């Protein structure tokens, strides 16, 4: 049987957490399958990552090229397709991250291997992988099977697996040479910080956070007023920024900021995975949402299934009277 391959992800000189999460799951699956775990690193010259990966994998294959210092679509797909064809890994794990979503589907098509995305768990059924994943923004789960193939590909949801096991492997680090004639049609220019702004939501003890449920731009003011009365900071979920109701520096979540307030008051926020990932550091989450089945209630400590404006008005009255 082929190995389990884990494609490492790194940015600005650091290996991303998803890499270690995938490696831990890969080690567990490899034990069940009696196969090996291979970490694959595409990086610039003399990156310091390989040794860290070697503690968690039986082998690390390293491709070094200055063009790989940061992510590059064409090079990733070209290098990985050649590698997969040579080694025929049984299972290839990639992050369900911005970059993983950029190359995994292309790699699957080029190699002909089937792909399931955004796995929150990976099972083995009669020696073949199956994937548990969410649909409808977390309102439904599904179990996905694959058409039989020499190998399978899965992108893994960040945060789905832990990284708490001992890192006592001593994998061999094996330098690889790049396939000939790879051309990039996409040129990296720069990174840009889009979340800097007047308010630093990462330092607040109380975040009063507003989501799509606020309905329209004019209603933001009443929530801002509540935040001010309570001495808290106003934050929001993605749809509020998408609609230009608040600037991006207010946004909590995967593409915004991760926050760690003592209390996170979520008003009209449904609780999409991308949002919830940003509030795992909150000490206490209180959610208000009209939809009693909203996914936010599965992660909140306290919930109110009611109209957010009713609760906002009552809180204002209580705080003013206090």
């Amino acid at each position: 049987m082929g190995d389990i391959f884990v494609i490492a992800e790194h940015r600005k000189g650091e290996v991303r957490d998803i890499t270690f999460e995938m490696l831990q799951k890969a080690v567990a699956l490899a034990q069940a399958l009696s196969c090996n775990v291979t970490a694959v690193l595409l990086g610039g010259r003399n990156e310091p990552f390989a040794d860290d990966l070697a503690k968690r994998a039986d082998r690390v294959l390293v491709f070094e090229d200055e063009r790989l210092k940061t992510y590059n679509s064409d090079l990733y797909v070209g290098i990985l397709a050649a590698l997969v064809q040579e080694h025929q890994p049984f299972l290839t794990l990639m992050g369900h991250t911005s970059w993983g979503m950029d190359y995994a589907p292309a790699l699957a098509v080029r190699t002909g291997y089937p792909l399931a995305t955004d796995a929150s768990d990976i099972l083995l059924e009669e020696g073949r992988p199956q994937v548990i994943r969410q649909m409808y923004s977390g309102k439904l789960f599904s179990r996905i099977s694959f058409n039989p193939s020499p190998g399978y590909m899965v992108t893994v949801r960040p945060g789905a697996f832990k990284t708490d096991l001992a890192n006592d492997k001593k994998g061999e680090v094996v330098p690889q040479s790049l396939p000939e004639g790879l051309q990039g049609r996409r040129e990296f220019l720069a990174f840009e910080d889009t979340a800097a702004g007047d308010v630093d939501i990462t330092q607040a003890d109380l975040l009063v956070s507003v989501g799509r449920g606020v309905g329209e731009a004019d209603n933001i003011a009443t929530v801002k007023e509540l935040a001010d009365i309570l001495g808290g900071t106003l934050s929001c979920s993605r749809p509020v920024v998408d609609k230009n109701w608040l600037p991006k520096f207010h946004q909590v979540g995967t593409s915004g900021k991760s926050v760690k307030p003592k209390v996170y008051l979520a008003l009209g926020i449904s609780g999409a995975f991308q949002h919830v990932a940003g509030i795992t550091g909150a000490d206490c989450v209180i959610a208000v949402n009209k939809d009693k089945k909203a996914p936010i209630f599965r992660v909140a400590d306290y919930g109110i299934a009611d109209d957010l404006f009713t609760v906002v008005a009552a809180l204002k009255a209580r705080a003013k009277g206090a």
Partner: protein
Amino acid sequence: MNIIVCVKRVPLTQEVDLEIDDTGKKIKEDALAYVINDWDNYAIEAAVQLQENLGGEVTAVTIGNEDDEEVLRRALAMGADRAIRIDPGDLTPDGYLNAKILAKTISDLDYDLIFTRVQSEDHNTGMVGIMLAEQLGLAHAAIVNSLEPEDGTVKVHVELEGGIDEVSRIQLPALLTIQTGINEPRYVSIMGIRKAKKKELKVVSLAELGFTPDDLTPQTFIEEVFLPPETDGAEMIEGSPAEMAETIIRIMGEKGVTV
């Protein structure tokens, strides 16, 4: 600049209790309202804005039944020039087959850019756009939240995790998956709807595209769907609004936030 934009109709599931049907493999869809996939509004707007600024044609494409033409008519009303509906018949394509069917349809068309959603609101796989790019041999970028054509290339901002964008330049022709918030999608005007009625809406079958049933084997299968496992979940606060406010203030105090 000729642009193709792929769109899709999805069930509206916010504030709706989903029920699983007898097959155990999908939800009961009959009672649900349907809307255009949220991401597609932004993709159409991005395409129409480029066409208005640079000229050229926008073609909207969907895979779906007659009811799904609603989203094509919406795209036409927003300013797309023509539309194509691919009728899948009895086939329920997975992400891979959706990409394969779209690729066959689009390969005969003239285009500089293809826009798709980052993902759909129903299955959330986020794979169709990039699979389509690869099937057509195109350069691509996923999760684009800003774009600007420049001399045979397009400069894009790709949204990464943690409030960071990657700025890149991509050679045309290219496929971009469009993120929400990239623009402010226009409202559909009465005038737009009237104009849309006169625009071409072509329907093609899988057979007309040259597919045989053997070509249409999915790569993945939904074995079952299930409602989220019951967890401990939130402790629900009940009572009158004043009582609920009192409880919230008390909890805040316990957590060290005093008002």
